[in-house]
Structure formats: structure tokens, C-alpha cells
């Protein structure tokens, strides 16, 4: 392991993290809800059977997420993002993320940001599991020569 000091951006990471923490806290304090993105998306799949008050806050939260880029670019320059991931890879990855977050009851936001803040043991185990899997998978994809 070597640390990539050139790519390291501590300032924007901390500012971004504080905003994420504040956003999750707002939703918790006022709505009594966990800001877990995978959970919010998957609950919308029950729109037919869900109680009436289950949908609106989830839809508005997601509209907030989707509109954040547009609002951001009114004030700041959007970061340039270049990816060269194929559509096939994106779909396999999406499928794994969808299946995995439902089986595991959460993702980086629900287990990581909220669950760890609640000192939940389940979330700690989940976060350790997806982090470790992410580190090992990245090693296999980038350095092992196997894949």
C-alpha cells in the first residue's frame, strides 16, 4: 500500500462529510427516519400497498438527491467526471448493489453514516463486510491479473 497524496482531498472530503452528516441528522430529528438511500428506494417499490404517509417523504428526499446537482451548479462549478465503465459492467454492478443492499438491509448511508452514528452492531458488521469486500474486490480487479 502507498498513499496517493496527489489525489488526497481532505478539505472537500470533510466539508462533504459534514453536509452528509447534517442532512442525515435533519431527517432523523424531524422525521424520525434513517437516511438510508437503498432502503428509501426499495420502499418505493411497495407504492401500491404502502400506507399513505410512507411515500411522500421518500419521494421528496429522492427529488432532493436528483436535483442537488442542478442546484449545486447554480453556485459552483460541477466537478468534471470521466468514467470509462462499460454498460455491461454498470449493469452487473447495479444488480449486485441492488441484491446486496436488500439482503444486507442497507448501504453506505443507512449502515455507514446512520447506523454507525447509532452505534448499531448490525451496521458495524455490515460496514466492515462491504468495506472489506470492496477492498478485496478492487485488489482482484486492478492488481491480481486474474480478472
Amino acid at each position, binding site marked *: 500500500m502507498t498513499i496517493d497524496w496527489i489525489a488526497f482531498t481532505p478539505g472537500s472530503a470533510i466539508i*462533504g462529510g459534514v*453536509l452528509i452528516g447534517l442532512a442525515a441528522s435533519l431527517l*432523523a*430529528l424531524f422525521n424520525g427516519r434513517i437516511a438510508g438511500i437503498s432502503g428509501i428506494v426499495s420502499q418505493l417499490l411497495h407504492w401500491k400497498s404502502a400506507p399513505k404517509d410512507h411515500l*411522500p417523504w421518500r419521494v421528496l*428526499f429522492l427529488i432532493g438527491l436528483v436535483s442537488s446537482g442542478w442546484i449545486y451548479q447554480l453556485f459552483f462549478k460541477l466537478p468534471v467526471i470521466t*468514467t470509462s465503465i462499460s454498460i455491461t459492467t454498470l449493469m452487473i454492478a447495479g444488480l449486485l*448493489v441492488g441484491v446486496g443492499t436488500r439482503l444486507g438491509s442497507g448501504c453506505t448511508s443507512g449502515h455507514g453514516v446512520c447506523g454507525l452514528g447509532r452505534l448499531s452492531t448490525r451496521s458495524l458488521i455490515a460496514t466492515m463486510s462491504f468495506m472489506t469486500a470492496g*477492498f478485496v474486490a478492487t485488489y482482484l480487479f486492478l492488481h491480481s491479473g486474474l480478472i
Partner: protein
Amino acid sequence: MKLVIAYLSGLIFGVGLIVSGMTNPKKVIGFLDLFGHWDPSLMLVIGAAIPITFIAFRWLENKQATVLNEPIHLPGKKHIDFPLIGGSVLFGVGWALAGYCPGPAIVSLGLGNGDVVYFVIAMVAGMKLVEFLTKT
């Protein structure tokens, strides 16, 4: 009021993801490349977020009600089981494969990063698949 808060929370969350670099798959994969050339930035993202949610949840759990004096809805599951670990491992592999987790993928839809829509469609299909399989 609660709906305005829900929108603002999503908006601030999304801006946080953009500022922190989490909507950039390259940045995410740089963080997951622990055994290569590691970019620790995203460690600071979660490290900065958790102390804030810690305070909020401590307050909520002491009061057992929201700021508006309404009931709280927090997950009650306590036991560690195979789906929790196995599912999280699958999620970690998918995260490493594309550099997207659910939040940044949805924010990226709004940023107009065209191809991310395929990721989101597959993700929703995966969620639906689990619900279908666990129902029967």
C-alpha cells in the same frame, strides 16, 4: 414541514456527496484501492459525518420522539445473520466494480452522467428480485 425537511435533507445529502467526491467513481475506486495506490479521502467523509449523526441519534434515543414530538421509526433488528453479511459482501463487490453506491448513483442521474441510468435500473431490478425471492 416534514416534507420540506425531507426535500432539504435529500438536497443537502446530494450536495455533500458531490462536494466530497463520492459521485466520482474514480475517486471511490481510489479509496477502495487500499492494496494499491490508496486515496484515503473518503475515510474523512464518513469520519466527518458520523460524529454529527451520533449526536442527533443520541438526542433522539434519549427523547424517544422527534423535534416535532412525533414517534421515531428506527430499525429494531439486533441479530447478526447470514443475509446481513452475505448481502453486504455482494454490495461491496458491486460498489468496487463500478464505483457507485446507491446515493451517488441517484445524484449522478441528475448530473446527467448518461450511463448511470443502466446502473440504477439494474439496482432496482436487483432489489425487486430479492423481494420476489424472499416472498415465496
